[in-house]
């Protein structure tokens, strides 16, 4: 996103709408117009959608590769080129009653790098993907981060994307429950290795007796599963059962 400095009157109305605080009035530069820090801007479009600029000074320039990734991962209204739909990940468990992607005995894991709200560069995201690759997971092929990998064995991403910053990106995979403990240990260790924050999601089938086998494993590994969850009610038909 850019600001036409011939139009901007420096009113600052747009500034609080930027989720990453990238719009500022630089000091000591004569006319106090607002400017967008292009390193920090994730191209989410929030400032433009806010439509608060009295001078219509905000505009979206034509983005070129690899900067286009910022918009694809950060603007929820933009269709992602690798998945063809808006959003940063996949349908994961939302349609699991129809797709059967996660079966009994399997856990789905997602590491949302940059969430909540801090943002991340693909360099941070690569740290996550490469550390997790070491414990032998298989990345979800439909996921847009997987599409940027040059080597799915090591989790290495394309060199030219590493300095691009996005609001968040999701590294997704599934593992057998008997391997979940070692994977969550590696996830725990990521906390000291990344230069941002990350949120962790854990998916499981609910067993007929109501038990959720991933929860005790997560607790054992020092995580506190949230009391609020996303729950697929199983109303999809035809129903995929194991």
């Amino acid at each position: 996103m850019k600001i036409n400095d011939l139009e901007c009157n420096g009113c600052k109305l747009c500034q609080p709408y930027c989720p990453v605080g990238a719009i500022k009035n630089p000091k000591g530069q004569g006319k106090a117009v607002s400017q967008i820090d292009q390193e920090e801007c994730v191209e989410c479009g929030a400032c433009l959608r806010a439509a608060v600029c009295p001078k219509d000074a905000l505009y979206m320039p034509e983005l070129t590769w690899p900067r286009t990734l910022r918009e694809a991962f950060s603007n929820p209204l933009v269709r992602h080129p690798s998945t063809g739909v808006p959003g940063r990940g996949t349908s994961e468990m939302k349609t699991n009653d129809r797709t059967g992607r996660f079966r009994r005995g399997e856990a789905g894991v997602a590491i949302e790098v940059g969430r909540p709200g801090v943002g991340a560069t693909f360099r941070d995201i690569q740290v996550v993907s490469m550390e997790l690759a070491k414990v032998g997971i298989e990345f979800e092929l439909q996921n847009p981060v997987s599409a940027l990998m040059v080597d799915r064995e090591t989790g290495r991403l394309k060199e030219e994307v590493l300095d691009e910053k996005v609001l968040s990106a999701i590294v997704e995979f599934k593992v057998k429950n008997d391997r979940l403990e070692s994977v969550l240990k590696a996830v725990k260790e990521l906390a000291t290795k990344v230069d941002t924050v990350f949120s962790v999601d854990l998916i499981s089938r609910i067993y007929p007796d109501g038990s959720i086998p991933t929860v005790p494993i997560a607790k054992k590994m020092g995580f506190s599963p949230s009391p609020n969850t996303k729950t697929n009610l199983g109303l999809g038909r035809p129903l995929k059962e194991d």
Partner: protein
Amino acid sequence: MTHSLHRRGSIEDLREDFVLLVIPPRDENSQESEETQGKMKQVWEVFSHYEKDLSNFGNGLSLLPMDVLKSNKAKTIAHAVFKDRETLKACVRELRDRQFGISVVISGLYEEVNKICSELDFSPHTVEHSLGAHGQTERLPGKNILEITTMCGHHTVSPYLAMHLVERINKGKMTYEKAAKELSRMCTCGIFNPHRAENILRRLTSKA
């Protein structure tokens, strides 16, 4: 795309915050089919029965009035935000009885969602837990601000906007209701809960 998962708050607050999602699978060409689109239109008709009790709703792409969503060619997802479990339960009952065969997901307190399923005599299928935020968590805003911003899973509701609006309320330049609506309009999916945001803003300003 776990945009409704990592909402934060006390158990009491979360009792007023349930997001219902109805979504067909992406990979069967089914989202675009006439049959699915027709069913999604009917889903919106079901949602419309509860409109006065909803805190928010949306199709993931733009914030449109219920009448438009009901009559438009339905899109890929339908969201509705409930502020009480009894209305949520009534809506889930209707969705179950209409047998659309489309996946239905609730983001909210598992204990309550599980009870609703039990009361309606079916068992939930799959669950996703948040295991929290890790790494440089010292870079996160304060607890109350985070409770507001995490109601937009894509994080296009800015913490700076929340703080700015708190300041405006404190100066008597804005009402709680208007501030909550201003925050809500920045979440294009329609999963932000302005009813809950208003309560959080009251807490934030009473501390000021």
